């Protein structure tokens, strides 16, 4: 019996030739990522358990990226950053992307990729549930809590139950109005928010392998909304190209065997996909965008690790170029690199940033911003009964701030089309 990519990576990191789903193993960790919300808690458990003067297991393998609550006057949130700074200097950690400095990046999952911390075949844990995003690089990555992260800081190891894998294959070609966000919302709608609990979501097929890295990251990002432990896409030329520009560390690549065992397999015809949204208040509350065209919105929000990358803004700019938005529209680049792309890359001779400004959008600084509500003064946060169409990944009650607001998750195309009309709008109405 063959093995899946996930099984192969885990086996290699447990020093075994073979592992099987359900088996509990201890793996060696290549990268531990933490941020401002969970870093301080992790650090305090680490010190409590390993002693005041303890050193981290490997300075080269710890990455700290403040991104959640940073542009706020909230004193508790700012104290978290101070704790990170102190720890970084005490441990002399090389990978700390401090806020307020040149080195600041923004949303951790995108910064990990852009700074070369995602490498095929590796094992990466992060104190954030969307750490599954990195699976787009053919690696094993998943979210953990503070205790597990503190354990890794001290030992470089963690126990893992080998997950069963689910395979989602997309044959053919996606129509040009379909984005990865539509694909993942469709799949979560099909399997439900606990449809992949404890399991791997493995993406394959010609349509998937034709996607650029950023779109692959969007697909993997929301595996957690299906309950998945991790997501994975085999590394190929597209991956190698991306990684080569960002790191020269060596890595291994793995492919699933033909005879690997899957818990579930489903094949979709990519060409039949339609734009979809997840209606309030659950990511699996799927509807076709065209079925929601009578829903009026108060706000469009384009940002986050899911929908705030360069590719996402490129899509939005195609629709917003030369037009005016009908509702408040918030543009939040995930990282400073994305922000620089908005400033430097052009469409019809105009920078994307100017396209958004001219359309009447409000532009935020690179960070998580209102994706998770946050302190009251957070950019784009909801405070009342706003109906929002958003490229983020969660629409639980209160996720973007106010418990009374209603969030429709959608692709950047749909969010931009809806921004122009003030109602949920199928991008096909505008892309023709």
């Amino acid at each position, binding site marked *: 019996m063959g093995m899946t990519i996930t099984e192969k990576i885990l086996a290699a990191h447990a020093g075994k030739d073979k592992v099987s789903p359900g088996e509990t193993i201890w793996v060696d960790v290549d990268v531990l990522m933490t941020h401002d*919300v969970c870093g301080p808690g992790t650090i305090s458990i680490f010190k409590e358990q390993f002693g005041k003067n303890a050193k981290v297991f490997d300075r080269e393998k710890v990455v700290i990226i403040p991104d959640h609550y940073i542009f706020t006057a909230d004193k508790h949130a700012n104290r978290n950053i101070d704790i990170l700074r102190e720890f970084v200097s005490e441990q002399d950690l090389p990978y700390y992307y401090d806020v307020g400095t040149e080195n600041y990046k923004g949303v951790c999952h995108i910064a990990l990729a852009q700074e070369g911390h995602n490498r095929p075949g590796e094992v990466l844990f992060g104190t954030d549930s969307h750490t599954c995003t990195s699976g787009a690089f053919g690696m094993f990555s998943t979210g953990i809590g503070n205790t597990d992260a503190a354990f890794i800081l001290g030992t470089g190891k963690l126990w893992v139950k080998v997950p069963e894998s689910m395979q989602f294959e997309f044959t053919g070609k996606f129509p040009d109005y379909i984005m990865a966000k539509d694909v993942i919302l469709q799949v979560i709608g099909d399997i439900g928010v606990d449809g992949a609990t404890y399991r791997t979501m493995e993406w394959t097929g010609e349509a998937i392998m034709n996607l650029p890295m950023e779109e692959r990251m969007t697909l993997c990002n929301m595996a957690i909304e299906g309950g998945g432990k991790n997501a994975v896409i085999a590394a190929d030329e597209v991956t190698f190209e991306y990684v080569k520009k960002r790191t020269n560390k060596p890595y291994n690549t793995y492919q699933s065997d033909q005879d690997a065992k899957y818990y579930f397999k489903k094949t979709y015809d990519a060409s039949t996909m339609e734009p979809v949204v997840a209606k309030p208040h659950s990511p699996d509350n799927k509807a076709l965008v065209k079925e929601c065209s009578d829903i009026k919105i108060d706000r469009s929000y384009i940002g986050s690790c899911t929908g705030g990358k360069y590719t996402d803004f490129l899509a939005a700019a195609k629709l917003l170029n030369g037009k005016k938005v009908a509702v408040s529209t918030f543009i939040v680049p995930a990282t400073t690199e994305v922000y620089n792309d908005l400033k430097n890359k052009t469409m019809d001779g105009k920078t994307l940033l100017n396209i958004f400004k001219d359309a009447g959008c409000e532009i935020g600084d690179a960070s998580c911003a209102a994706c998770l509500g946050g302190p009251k003064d957070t950019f784009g946060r909801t405070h009342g009964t706003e109906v929002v169409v958003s490229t983020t990944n969660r629409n639980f009650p209160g996720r973007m701030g106010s418990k009374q607001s209603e969030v429709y998750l959608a692709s950047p195309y749909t969010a931009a089309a809806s921004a122009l009309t003030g109602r949920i709008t199928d991008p096909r109405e505008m892309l023709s």
Partner: protein
Amino acid sequence: MKKFIEGKAYVLGNDIDTDQIIPAEHLVYSLSDPEEKKNYGKFALSGVPKNAAGLPDGSKSFIAEGKFESEYTIIVGGKNFGCGSSREHAPACLKIAGIQAIVASSYARIFYRNSVDGGFFIPFEIQDQLVNDTRTGDNLIIDVEKESLTNKTTGKSYKLNSLGEVIEIIRAGNIFEYARQSGLI
């Protein structure tokens, strides 16, 4: 590890996510400062919509006004309990509020891991429709070794799913104690 866990039940539905357990805006308090930490008890489950708070009737506060601890000891939940973010503040706040066990049909995996590895409380799974049989305020008793639960209010007894290998971490207290006892660190 306690042999028996006894107390009042607080009943919740399916897909209770971490934003309902502890809304993101409260994540700023320190978990290591004893005074500040209490706030997590105060805001535990404060994101649950009113009609879903304390089933089947709803509108039952988990934490009484002005209090930091709950009168309830055991949470009874539906499927996919603890879905959403990886924040350990979620199991932590429930423990700070006084929760000693959760009995749910299934869990989101990060929440489950956090509960066990951090030694916050025991996350039991159950096949039966306990969540439909139980009313908020019922008196429950869990026999931890026998992996069974009795509702003293209704007199009904239930079998809990076996905790499997994680029982060893629960017995040890948390992942650190487990690793020490088994010579890993």
